[in-house]
Every structure is written in structure tokens, then in C-alpha cells.
């Protein structure tokens, strides 16, 4: 809650009556989050983006825009060199500092929250206001607003999964994250949904005990889809889904960020789970591992 309040304050601070926001729509935008880049393209402001991060790889047209680096934290001079009249940043500690520095050199900087599905609509509306494209932003926001409200396919999902972010130490995705929402909307239950944090370190034996049917990993979009290296490690063979090769390899560009394609990500994940379920029934293991 305090964060949301902070967000409101920051938006208010950003929209101070200095004449630049209220009146003229932004014409030269630097977008420092792939999700913002996607939203800006979706509302028709893609041709006004003059700078992006190296991670902004969608839509393909975004790749033609000059990159200002990885944005973590933003390189202020590289951003300023693009002569923007608006910089949009993800609301995080280092970015708050960066936004202040940008304001100090007379560049309008706006911090937006984008952590979960319900942040998408407000983010789209805010970007609509800043670009003077309120109507298109509103219609996009309406669609995005409905995403978290859509009831999952079944109220008590039978399919279970665990998102593994890193294997040593094992880092998993908890309840407070976008990926957890994505799984729920796709009709699967995150076995670590009881952990409030967005991500957390757990013991391998906890993963074994919770016995997810699927291990979901975000795959580098550039690399060919292959099971992660830890699948071959002996200690990971204690996890049933790893032994059975039940991996969901999710391209990070589509699944790793909330954005206009979140609906597509939910549909793809749902299809993947449904298809795999049939496949899994097909290839039922001959000797089931002893279950406790």
C-alpha cells in the first residue's frame, strides 16, 4: 500500500503544473522498460520513441530505435543525448534517483509502477495522457483491466507448477509476482503461491516435497529452447518433474514482462499446459516414483 501511495505522489510530482505535461503531448520519448515500449507502440506512439533499453525487443520495429543501454540504472547522459521531452521509467529505487537527475537537467521524467497485471491499465492510461493519445490508450487499458478479473478456467486448478528463476541456490517465484498471476489465469497453481514475496530462495527438498507437475523456466529468447543445465544435475533429479522432463520453457520476451501481450501469454500458457497434459497422459511413466 505505501508503494501505491508513493506512486500516486510521484505521478502528482511528475505532473507539476510546469506546463510541459498538461499542455503539449510528448514528441520525443525515451522508454526505459520493455513493457512501456510495447504499450507505447500499442497506442500508436511508437514513432515518437527516440530511445529504448537493450531489452526492448518487441515489436520488431522497436529494434530500429537507438538503444541507451541496459537501463539498470539508466545512463543519464546517453538518455539526455537523445534530446527527449519525456522519459518513462519503471518505479524502483535507483530509477527514482535517475528521474530526479533528469528533472534537474530539465528533462521531464515519469515513474510508473508495473509489477502486476492490475498495474497495466493505469500504466497505459498514464502513457496515453502523456502522449495525448487518451482514446487509444483507454481502449487498450479497458482490455488490459479485464485480464486480472477474468475468472480462471477452473476454480480449483489441478495442474501445478513451480517457476525456477535460478538453480543454485534455488530461487522460485512467489505469490507477489506477475508470473504467479499468469499461472493462475492460465489455470495452473503455483506450488509456492503461499510465499508472499515476488521471489524467494528455497531448499531443493521443499521443491521435492511440493512436487509440482511442471517446472517453468523463462528461456532466453535468442537461445534455442532446451531444458536448463540444472536438469542434468544429480541433486535436481530428486524432483519428479525434472526426472520426467516436465519443463515449460517460456520465452522471456513474451512471458517475462507484463504488457499488451499479457493476454496472449495467458492463452499460450493455457494451451501449453493443455497440450502437455495430453502428451503427458500419452507418455505415462511405466514405473511411477514412490510417492510419500
Amino acid at each position: 500500500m505505501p508503494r501505491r501511495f508513493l506512486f500516486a505522489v510521484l505521478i502528482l510530482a511528475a505532473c507539476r503544473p510546469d506546463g510541459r505535461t498538461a499542455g503539449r503531448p510528448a514528441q520525443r520519448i525515451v522508454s526505459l522498460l520493455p513493457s512501456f515500449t510495447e504499450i507505447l507502440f500499442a497506442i500508436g506512439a511508437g514513432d515518437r520513441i527516440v530511445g529504448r533499453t537493450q531489452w526492448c525487443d518487441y515489436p520488431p520495429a522497436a529494434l530500429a530505435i537507438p538503444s541507451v543501454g541496459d537501463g539498470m540504472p539508466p545512463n543519464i547522459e546517453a538518455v539526455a543525448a537523445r534530446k527527449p521531452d519525456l522519459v518513462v521509467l519503471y518505479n524502483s529505487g535507483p530509477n527514482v534517483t535517475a528521474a530526479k537527475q533528469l528533472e534537474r537537467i530539465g528533462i521531464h521524467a515519469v515513474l510508473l509502477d508495473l509489477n502486476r497485471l492490475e498495474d497495466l491499465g493505469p500504466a497505459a492510461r498514464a502513457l496515453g495522457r502523456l502522449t495525448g493519445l487518451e482514446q487509444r490508450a483507454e481502449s487498450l487499458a479497458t482490455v488490459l483491466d479485464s485480464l486480472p478479473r477474468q475468472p480462471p478456467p477452473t476454480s480449483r486448478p489441478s495442474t501445478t507448477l513451480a517457476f525456477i528463476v535460478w538453480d543454485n541456490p534455488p530461487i522460485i517465484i512467489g505469490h507477489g509476482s506477475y508470473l504467479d498471476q499468469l499461472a493462475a489465469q492460465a489455470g495452473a497453481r503455483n506450488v509456492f503461491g503461499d510465499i508472499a514475496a515476488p521471489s524467494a530462495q528455497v531448499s531443493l527438498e521443499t521443491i521435492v516435497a511440493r512436487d509440482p507437475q511442471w517446472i517453468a523456466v523463462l528461456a532466453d529468447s535468442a537461445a534455442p529452447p532446451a531444458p536448463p543445465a540444472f536438469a542434468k544435475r544429480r541433486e535436481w533429479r530428486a524432483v519428479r518433474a525434472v526426472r520426467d522432463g516436465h519443463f515449460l520453457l517460456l520465452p522471456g520476451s513474451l512471458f517475462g514482462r507484463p504488457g499488451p501481450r499479457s493476454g496472449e501469454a495467458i492463452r499460450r500458457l493455457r494451451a501449453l499446459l493443455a497440450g502437455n497434459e495430453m502428451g503427458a497422459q500419452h507418455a505415462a511413466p511405466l514405473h511411477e516414483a514412490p510417492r510419500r
Partner: protein
Amino acid sequence: MRWTLLVVVAVLALIAGVVLGPAAVPLSELLRSDIVWNLRAPRALLAFLVGGSLGVAGAGLQALVRNPLADPFLLGLSGGAGLGAVVAIALHLPGPWALPIAAFVGALAALGLVYRLGLIGGASLDPRILLLGGVAIGAFAAAITTAIVSLADAAELRNAFLWLWGGLSGASWDSVLLVALYAPIPLAVLLAASRPLDLLALGEESAGYLGADVEAVKRRVYLAASLLTAAAVAVSGVIGFVGLVVPHISRLVWGHRHRSLLPAAFVGGGALLAFADTLARTVVAPRELPVGVVTALIGVPVFALLLRRWTIA
């Protein structure tokens, strides 16, 4: 009496490591459980071996450089290992053992450089230069690591730091076997140097008069302690504090004779790490704490208590 107590504590730590865990395994199924056999047992044993190795390496190095602040990781090995791990990730080296091997190679490279620096004044290994060289090489490797992480594209590079502080999550029978075959050699070298290490406390010159081959001992101790630490970092990342505080605690209880100090540091270090890892896995379950946090939280109060008793007595 002291020995009995220490061995009992160590055995209890190992038993706790196998019996306790975030997953509920009924006692009746303890011996049949996959979790116990393939996860807890190798992890407890690895913790014991790594903790013991770090304890002995720390005791040896503190005697060698005659500095109570010496820690096995102070001599540049963690920096080298981190650089190795980051390079392995950046080059997409394949295979489940790529990271540990690269970290080991990185630690060995740092060891070689520091050793070379230590010989800079001639044929005699200067402990002070070893310390300074270790810090310098470690900082240099860390700088290169940070440069690679901030310049390279792969988002997963940031996870290399997680790996470096990873603790014992990667424990398996493979890694236990590896350490069990590897560690005895440097451990034996250090134990064989017990007597000369005692003499070294009197100063290098006096030790030489009393019949110690000072140069050979210094080299052997430095290389053996570093090789132990390099293996530890490859299987469990950087685990702070065990190698610093366990030798001091052992010295307070067992005195300065290395023939008993080194075995005590081994069993004590093993017990501390096995116990700390059990706590790391269980106290905030289903989440897990980094084991280095727990070793410091247990080690410092015990150390302070012993220090107080020792200075008052």
C-alpha cells in the same frame, strides 16, 4: 573430555542435518525417503567436509601469515572463483559442472598470481606480501567480474553472484565424493606441517634455528590451504566466517599446538557448518537463509563468549 564433547556435537550436527528439514518426513520413513537419501544426507556431509576444510585452511593460514585476521577467502580466491563463474556463464559453457569447474580454475589462477607476487622479493615467500597480494588480486578479479556483468547482455549474468554466495544447495553424492577424494591430500599436508607451524609462531628466524625448513613449510602450507579453499568455493561458493572464527575458537580451547589444533578446527568447522546449514534450511521454511548469515550469527556470539572467558581467566 574436550574431544568427546566435540565429537558428540559434530555427530549431533550431522544427525540434525539428516533428520530436520523444511519437508515433513516421518521418522519411520527416514531411511527410505528420497529426500533424506539424495538431498539431506549428501548436503549434511558436504557441509561437514567444507566447514572442516575451511577451518583447517584458516588455522594454517593464520599461523603462516601470523595475522589473526587471515581468512581463507582473504587471499584472492573468492575474487578468482567469481570471475571464473561469470566467464562460464558469459561464454555459455555447457554442462551441469561448467560453473564449479570454472570457479575452481578461477580460484587456482588467483592462487597462482598471489603466490607469484609473494615470491616477488626473491626466493623467500613473504607472508605480508601474500596478504597484500591476495587482497589486491581479489579486488582486481572482482573489478573484471563487475565489468563483465555490467557490459555483457545476458541477464543471467547477474545470477553469477547468487551462485558465488550459493551455499550448499548444489550438494549431491557426486560433490561429496569429489571433496572426500580431494580434501584428504591438502589436509594431510597441513597436518604433517603441525610441528613447523608451531615453531613458526616464534618467528621465521627462530623457527629456522630450531630446525624447521621455513621456506618449504611456508610454501606447502600456503598451497595446501589455498587448494582446500578453492575446492570449497567450487562446491559451495564463498562461505564466510568459518575459516576465520573456528581456528580462533579452537585455539582458545585446544591451545596453540597444531597437532591438536588442526583436527579440532576440522571437526569444529564441520560441526558449525553442518549445524548452520540445518538452521538455514529450517528456521524460515519454506524459505531458506543464505548459510553465511547463519555461520556469522552463531559464530560471533560463541567467539565473544570464549574470548571473555579466556581474557578473564
